[in-house]
C-alpha cells in the first residue's frame, strides 16, 4: 500500500451532510472486477447531468457546472472537505477507490460512517475527524480564499492552514503506523499465524460445529 506521511494539497469543499457511498460511486460502476478506473465516475450523479454507464468515455458528457469538482478553482484538489456522516450506506470499497483514482488523498469531516472510515485506511486515504466548529471554519476559509491548501502531517497528527494555524487530529496508533509505513495488513496479520492457529485449536475444541459443515 502507498504510504502517507505529509501531504499538501488544494482543498475542495463538498457542503452536504450524509454523503452516502451510492453518491460517491453509483452502483452501475460496481460491475467492474478491477480496483482502478473509477475516478471519472466519482460523484457521477452530482457531477454530470446525464446518467453514466460503465465503460463509457466521460470526456463529452454534460457537466453540472454547479458541482464543486467542476469548478475551475478546485481543479486538482486532493483534500476533500466534507460534512457529517460522510460515507454512510453501502460497504463498497469502490468509494475510496474512486476518491483515490480521482486524486484525493485525504478527507476531512466532522464524522464518518464506520465501514467507509475503515476502508479508507486500506487504500492509503486518510480520513480526518475534526470538530463541527473546526470544519465550519475550514469551509469559510476555503470558500473565501482561492487556491486554499492544507498541509496534513500524519506522524505529527496536525493540519496546517495557509495562515499557519494548526489543528490537531488523532488516528489510532496501529492504523497510523500502517499508513505511515504503507504496510500490507495481511502480511502483518500473518506474522501472527501461530497465535491464530492456537486460537483456532481451542475454538474448534469448544465449538466443533463451526468447522467443516460447509464443504
Amino acid at each position: 500500500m502507498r504510504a502517507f506521511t505529509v501531504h499538501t494539497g488544494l482543498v475542495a469543499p463538498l457542503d452536504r451532510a450524509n454523503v452516502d457511498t451510492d453518491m460517491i460511486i453509483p452502483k452501475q460502476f460496481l460491475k467492474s472486477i478491477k480496483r482502478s478506473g473509477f475516478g471519472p465516475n466519482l460523484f457521477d450523479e452530482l457531477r454530470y447531468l446525464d446518467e453514466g454507464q460503465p465503460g463509457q468515455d466521460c470526456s463529452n458528457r454534460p457537466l453540472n457546472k454547479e458541482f464543486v469538482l467542476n469548478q475551475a478553482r478546485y481543479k486538482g484538489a486532493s483534500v476533500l472537505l466534507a460534512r457529517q456522516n460522510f460515507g454512510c450506506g453501502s460497504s463498497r470499497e469502490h468509494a475510496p477507490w474512486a476518491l483515490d483514482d480521482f486524486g484525493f488523498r485525504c478527507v476531512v469531516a466532522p464524522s464518518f460512517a464506520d465501514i467507509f472510515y475503515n476502508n479508507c485506511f486500506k487504500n492509503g486515504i486518510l480520513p480526518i475527524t475534526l470538530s463541527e466548529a473546526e470544519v465550519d471554519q475550514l469551509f469559510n476559509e476555503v470558500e473565501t480564499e482561492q487556491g486554499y491548501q492544507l498541509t496534513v502531517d500524519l506522524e505529527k497528527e496536525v493540519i496546517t492552514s495557509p495562515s499557519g494555524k494548526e489543528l490537531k487530529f488523532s488516528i489510532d496508533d496501529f492504523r497510523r503506523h500502517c499508513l505511515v509505513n504503507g504496510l500490507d495488513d495481511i502480511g502483518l496479520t500473518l506474522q501472527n499465524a501461530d497465535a491464530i492457529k492456537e486460537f483456532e485449536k481451542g475454538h474448534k475444541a469448544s465449538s466443533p460445529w463451526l468447522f467443516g459443515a460447509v464443504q
Partner: protein
Amino acid sequence: MAGKTLYDKLWDNHLVQQRDDGSALIYIDRQLLHEVTSPQAFEGLRLAGRQPWRIDANLATPDHNVPTTSNERESGIEGIEDPISKIQVKTLDDNCNDFGIVQFDMQDKRQGIVHVVGPEQGATLPGMTVVCGDSHTSTHGAFGALAHGIGTSEVEHVMATQCLVAKKMKNLLVRVDGKLGLGVTPKDVVLAIIGKIGTAGGNGCALEFGGQVFRDMTMEGRMTVCNMAIEAGARAGMVAVDQTTLDYVKGRPFAPQADLWEKAVAAWSDLHSDDDAVFDEVVVLNGEEIKPQVTWGTSPEMVLPIDAHVPTPADGVDETQQEGYARALEYMGLNGGQPITDIPVDRVFIGSCTNSRIEDLREAASVVKGRKVADSVKEALVVPGSGLVKEQAEAEGLHDIFIAAGLQWREPGCSMCLAMNADKLGNGEHCASTSNRNFEGRQGFGGRTHLVSPAMAAAAAVKGHFVDVREMMAGAQ
C-alpha cells in the same frame, strides 16, 4: 464487576489478540461472498500467491447482478444479457471453482440474496462471527451472532488469515417495550427506531435490540430489524438467543445435528446480555405507539407515520437539517405539508434482503388477495429472496394470488433494491419499496424511493398511493 453484554461475550469469544492501541485480531467463523465485492479480493490473493486459510468458512452466491426474469435465467450465466454483469457473475463462478469454495450458482435453487441464504441454510449460527462484503450483513445478528459488513480489502484479509483487524465498538441498547398493534410489522419498528435515533445514531456502536417486542418477534422479523441496523449507523445489530432462535435453526442443512446439536444448544444458552450488563447508551421506544411508517425523503431517517404530513424545510432542527429537508423535498418532488397518503405510487417493489422472506410474501399476499393493482401503477414486482423461498411461496399458492392481482412474480436476487440489473425506476418515478435505502438514484437514476413494509407496499399497489394498510385489513370498515 458488571456483567457482560451480548456483544462483549461475542467479542471475547473470538478475540485472538488484543493490541495496546485498542485494535485487535478477531477470529471469523463465516464469510459470505457475492459477485460484486469479491473479485478484487480473489485477485489480491492470486497476486500475492496466497490460499484461503479455511475454505469451509466461506459460502458464495451471486445476487446483486442476476436477472430476475425466468427467460433470462433459463440458460444460466451465458443467458445474462448485460455483458458486464455476466463477466462479474462468471468471475465469481470461476473464483469459487479455482479455490474450492462452495457456491450456490444461478441455477441452484438454494441461490438467492446472501443474507437470506445464509440463515436459511443454517450457515449462520448463534454465537458466530459473520462477515460479508456487504453492509447488510448486520442481518445475521438476529441469531445472536456478531455480524457486520466489511470492505473488499477486508474480504481478502479474512480469506487469507481467517481474522479481521477490529476495534471494539460501544454498546448501544434499543429497547422496544409493549406489544405491536395489528398491521404494524418489524419493518415499521426498525424505521421508527431510525426515525428516532437518526442514520448516524449508532455510529461506532454494536446495537442490541431488546425488549418485549423483539422477544415476541419471529426470526424473520428479527432479521428485518437487524438488517437495517446499518441504516441507523450501527455496523452490527443483534438480538439475544432464545427458544425462537433454536426452533428456527434446528434441522437446517449446515446446522449441527444430533449430539453436536445438544452441545451447541448448551453453549448458546449464554448468548444474551447479563442482567447487570452496562450499555454505553440506551434508547427506549413504546411498541404500542408505533404506526405503519413511510419514508418521504432521501435518507432512511426521513420517515414518518402514515397519518403524518411531509415536513417543510423549516421543520428541520438546525441549518444542516433544514438544507437537507429542502434538497430531499426537491429531489422527491414533494411539497412540504402534503399528507403522506397523497403521494402517488408509480412502481412497487416487494423484495430485498430486508423483506423477501416467506413471512414477508405472506404478509403482502394477504393484502392483495382478491384485489387488483391500481391502473396508475406501471409495474409491481415481487422478488423472492431465494429459490427456496420461491418454492415455498409457490407451494402455498402465493404466486397465484400475486399474479391474479396483477403483480409480477420473479426469480430471486437483489433486483430493484439497487437496480444493478434491468429492474429499475425511471426518472422521477415514486416507488413503494420494501428495501432498505432511499438514497438518491438508489433504485434507478432520478428514482424516488419510499421505504415501507410488505403490507404497506401491497396496500399502495392496490390504491395507487400510500394508504394505512390497517384500514384494508380484515375487519376494517
